[in-house]
């Protein structure tokens, strides 16, 4: 994986350099215009709220690219079209009918609520486009440096090992030279050396210290050994490299998409379910690119817009979506995600019990997923971890008629208001192992 990513990085650097040059060129050319910032802002705001789900400035989406649309159409026609395109088509306007047919009869919403001024602001925005920042920082610069700076880890290790070997060689050579020269004769030890050897002999002769230190050593060995062996098969922090650089931070964090919008099985089934590609396409049909300046930390590398857009393209490839013709080709390639949370066959776990019945937040077990770019296993998923929670947590009997009878009996017989999962039999082996 590593070598491949290095190889890719070279290509990425080249591409980025070209983009950089291109961007500078572009910004120079666009900077020459005078821009009414207020109008542009007002237009952009309207555009993003009303138009962006179907239009982009520079490429086709559901509808045509709108950059420079003012040059292509009369202002009057545009106003009529935007306010009520159906009316315009019904009036027999040839251009209107033609554009309608070109886009396979997708109907554009009517916007009778917009004033002429507002529409003109939008159109102004489509003409002038994005404002250039006063001091354009190349967003790719950092990436380039990072990419160059992060030497492969194995190289460092090899270098370190080589240096250590070299030091050892030099040391032994020096020692040999000294011996050959006869500088160090038998019995001619320094004071310090003599003191140390006396101390050592003292320790060796003291049985108490010997026994105690042996016990200590054994205890340490046992502790370390147990700790190591205990971790076998515990994959806390397991963070495999996924086929698509999907960032939970962008989706669940920045955009606040509900976990169960994608993992919809969690409330019904034992499995939380990995969303099928058509769920991705619900949004990504309209989102072909990430916003400028989006960054994702992925496998030690920072992905910028260029890389992330390619990741979205992978979703299109899986779904068989052609972003040019805006249609499904039928050529589907399921995404082979790497499973992170692996429970052994003999342990039964049911998401719906915890999500729907207990009303737990996903984060309770999966950690602050909304802060993760790269998904990882947050909890150890060991039996002890399960049981700790079952011991501490009270069953929420309120508002669930299933528990009503149990709750009444508890209150009546034992005068107990609260009961933990463990007290209701949640620690029995057979509840999770069958």
């Amino acid at each position, binding site marked *: 994986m590593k070598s491949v990513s290095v190889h890719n990085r070279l290509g990425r650097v080249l591409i980025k350099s070209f983009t950089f040059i291109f961007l500078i060129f572009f910004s120079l050319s666009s900077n020459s215009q005078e821009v009414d910032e207020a109008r542009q802002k007002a237009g952009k705001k309207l555009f993003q709220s009303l138009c962006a789900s179907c239009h982009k400035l520079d490429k086709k989406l559901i509808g045509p690219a709108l950059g420079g649309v003012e040059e292509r159409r009369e202002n009057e026609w545009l106003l009529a079209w935007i306010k009520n395109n159906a009316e315009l088509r019904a009036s027999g306007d040839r251009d209107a009918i033609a554009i309608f047919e070109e886009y396979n009869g997708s109907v554009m919403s009517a916007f009778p609520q917009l004033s002429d001024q507002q529409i003109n602001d939008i159109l102004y925005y489509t003409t002038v486009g994005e404002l250039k920042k006063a001091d354009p920082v190349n967003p790719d610069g950092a990436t380039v440096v990072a990419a160059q700076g992060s030497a492969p880890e194995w190289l460092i290790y090899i270098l370190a090992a080589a240096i250590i070997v070299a030091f050892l060689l030099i040391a032994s050579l020096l020692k040999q030279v000294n011996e050959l020269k006869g500088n160090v004769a038998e019995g001619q030890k320094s004071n310090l050396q003599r003191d140390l050897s006396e101390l050592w002999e003292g320790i060796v002769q003291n049985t108490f210290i010997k026994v105690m230190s042996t016990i200590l050593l054994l205890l340490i060995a046992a502790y370390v050994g147990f700790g190591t062996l205990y971790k076998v*098969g515990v994959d806390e922090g397991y963070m495999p490299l996924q086929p698509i650089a999907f960032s939970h931070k962008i989706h669940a964090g920045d955009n606040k998409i509900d976990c169960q919008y994608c993992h919809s099985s969690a409330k019904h089934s034992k499995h939380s379910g990995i969303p099928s590609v*058509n769920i991705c396409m619900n949004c990504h049909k309209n989102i072909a690119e990430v916003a400028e300046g989006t960054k994702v930390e992925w496998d030690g590398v920072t992905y910028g817009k260029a890389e992330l857009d390619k990741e979205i393209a992978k979703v299109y490839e899986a779904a068989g979506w052609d972003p040019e013709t805006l249609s499904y080709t039928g050529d589907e390639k399921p995404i082979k995600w790497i499973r992170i949370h692996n429970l052994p066959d003999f342990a039964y776990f049911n998401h719906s019990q915890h999500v729907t019945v207990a009303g737990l937040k996903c984060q309770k077990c999966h950690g602050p997923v909304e802060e993760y770019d790269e998904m990882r296993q947050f909890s150890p998923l060991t039996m002890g971890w399960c049981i700790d929670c079952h011991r501490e947590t009270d069953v929420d009997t309120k508002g669930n008629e299933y528990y009503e009878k149990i709750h009444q009996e508890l209150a009546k017989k034992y005068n107990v208001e609260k009961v933990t999962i463990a007290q209701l039999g949640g620690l029995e*082996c057979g509840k999770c192992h069958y």
Partner: protein
Amino acid sequence: MASNKKYWKSVEELTNSSIVETLSKNEFVEEIPTDEFLGDKESLENSSTTRRDFLKYIGFTTAAASLAACEGPVRKSIPYVVKPNDYIPGVADWYATSIADGFDFANVLVKTREGRPIQIMPNKEANGTTSARVQASVLSLYDEKLRLKEPTRNGETITWTDADAAIGAKLSALKEANTPVVFLTGSLASPSTNKIISEFITAYPNVKHVVYDAVSESGAADAMMAMFGKRALPNYHLDKAKTIVSFGADFLGDFHGGFEKQYVNGRKPETGSMSYHVQFESNMSLTGANADKRVVLKPSEQVFALLNLYNAVTGSSVSSKATPVDAEVKAMAVELKKAGSKGVVLTGLNDKNAQLIAFAINKALNSEVFDTNNTLNTRQGNDAEVSQLVADIKAGKVGGLLAYNVDPAYSLPNASEFVDALSKVSLKVAYSTENNDTVNAMEFALPAPHFLESWGDTMFDEVTYGLAQPTIQPLFNSRQLQDTLLLWSGNSIKYYDYLKAFATENILGGSSWNTALHNGFYTKELSEAVAFDSTVDLSAAASALANSARKANGFELTLHTTTGLGDGKQANNPWLQEFPDPITRVSWDNYLTMSMADANELGFANPVRDNGAIDGNYAKVSVNGKEVTVPVIIQPGQAKGSFGLSLGYGRTFGLKEEMQVGVNAYPLYTNASNVQYGVSIEKVSGNHEFACPQVQKTIAGRHDILKVASLKEYKTVDPKDHHHGWNKPAYVSYDHKEVEANTIDIWDEHNRELGHHFNLSIDLTSCTGCGACVIACHAENNVPVVGKKEVRVGRDMHWLRIDRYYSSEVETREDAKELGLSRGEMYRALETEAENPEVTFQPMMCQHCNHAPCETVCPVAATSHGRQGQNQMAYNRCVGTRYCANNCPYRVRRFNWFNYANNDEFDFNMNNEYGKMVLNPDVTVRSRGVMEKCSMCIQMTQATIVKAKKEGRPVNTDEFETACSSACTTGSLVFGDINNKEDEVTSLIADKRAYNVLDYLQTKPNVVYQVKIKNTNEA
């Protein structure tokens, strides 16, 4: 009283008791042969592994294993691209459909997980029943070895288009030349398919449709045609019956497709009346085993007994002969007349005349049990047409043969002649789900989908219309017969559309197609019976019948089907092969059943080896110049001078090597007659090794296993009466006093008032021993198949077994003493009883004792008790000491001696990708070295609880089920929560019939049995 009867499981217990006694004490019949190896100096010296090497290997493997364990495998998770809307991974979907494979017909529900069918259950709304075979048919879907995968021509794969073109051209040529083409199918009972076939015949008028049933019931259908003008099988409403007299009709087995539900509904002791059932038979059949009175009679004598009964009931005097049981026959005639319209007579002889006589008796009784209007469509085979077809093929008169899902090259008595004659047929097409002998003999082989992949409809009787829908995408490149026939007839419509239109127009009468499809069935109005003037000459029929029986000489052979394999369609199904026959308890084999008297005369024996395995001798059986060599099982209750042999075994073509077991008996099935006279037998050399767990894991010989009482006792005697009670509590000696066992206890009681407390009630009166629950348990709990060799040494893994006990009138040793019999004399007396013992079935699984002996001895606490009453088994905790099994008095714990999954040594369904698709994802596949046992389907109870919690409601009374209780169609097994006062099981455990097996041990099981009540006709 009744509980003191001597119960025994095998003939060997009566004759060779020392081995059996030893076996009854050992939980595991074979010791691990360590002493044998270590004690043998020579083998140790010859061993190339030195001690040092051994230690090195151990060290290396331990290190390697721990290194390998550090890095877990990378697992991929591949979601759908477009997920179907109505489907959630991890949640089971149920579909209603119906099975109609030509032998088994049933309304069923199919459980699917992640798009794969994993279990079949009866559709109880539609009165559906499932047998072991129907339950197991879900595994046959995944039979990658036997199923046809691609269309082929002479073994070469071709496309469907090419096949259509080539066959179409030949069909047209044959039509031009007006050469007969025969379309050979099994019983389809599908109205839409029949219409498609008739349209196909309209397009190709030279085609003739012939129906062939491997196991024929043509006699009954022909008799119906002659007497009532309708070629179908009569229906028997046994729930209405007061007196049932059956002459060899195994109606709880495969006779007409099984009547167990109606039969049991007519035998509920709570209602105060039970039907009185007398069975005259030669073989010990499932039906005979359940009868109130079983009269052992050779087949030829059954014929005369039937004729004598006819004479006695109708007062006529048709030609007959005296039989040894004429007194019983006379008594039955009186009984039948007394019962009047509630009496019924059945005969299992596949003979038109015999059926006519039985029909005539029912007619004379004006029997309302016997129904000739709402008839059964499940057997339509016509023996005369089939034999005519074979003759025509031999004569070269047939130009084309299309065979659909039949295997005449295996199941015809003259199969080899049939195959040889096929060279004279120019168009040979086999349309089949599986690759069998017939497919092999034909030019074209076209794969048909399994019924779980198909659309379809079935008219079971005249009112029940069952719909079939696919529950999985076709696994292979198959196409439905109906689609193909429509295409060949030049109709471009798809079968689904055709079926929908057909059903809407002809059947549903305005009700919704979607509702019918959802329910899986639709009940039509029964049309009025059409009057028919019968011209049958009954006395001619009777004399023809008598003459045929008079010809009987030598031994007589009854050919029958077994509960496991039926007609042999599913012979490659490991679940069915390992399913022990309810009567003989033999799996992986068929055999000649022989009476003990004949065996002694002819020198046959079934010695029991010291590991509990049973051996047998071979017999060469010849009938009509045909010979087969079969192993012999001595069967108590077999009529002297008669043998029994089952059909459906001995298939070899395409089967896995392990499944190529048994002997093909179809060559003896001449004229489709299930009784063959003039049989000669010869003992031949060789020792046959049976796989029969009957003397292994036995708890026979202990007290209070079975309790049986008569209906009279049930009604009049106090069950707990100290002397005559039929359900006396156990007494134990405490402080030198006899006290009721349940008054003393060495354990504290668990508190189970809170939440659920599960109990299973098993009614021995309603259990017919059919074994559907055994297969349902297999499917639900991923129970592995271990193969013949392992079953032989007692390592079968069935979580649920059905113990079959024989019992005799001479009861206990105390009774024998009273009668002044010595011990030897007592066993001799029992042996005489073995000529016709009473039979009782007892489903036996983990009893989920509240005070479980297994739990206290587990050194690692791997088996423990749950608050809900289930005895839980944590496989991952078990270290395999087997102490628990040793301490279990019920012998229901099973040890995984090997890894049965992904192991080439056990090449059954868990060793291939297709077969593994049937596994239940909610249940662990156990690994080697752990103990397992019935879990009371904890995965099902937990799922029910979670469902209720999610929906925020209490669990409904009928919601808790186990696999066995939902598979049980007679209602013998009832599962539920005794903390719910309204649950059926709560009243059952308080019933006066309720008892616990071995209750003097006070293990306090959560499985409760109901005393078996027999109607001895005294009440």
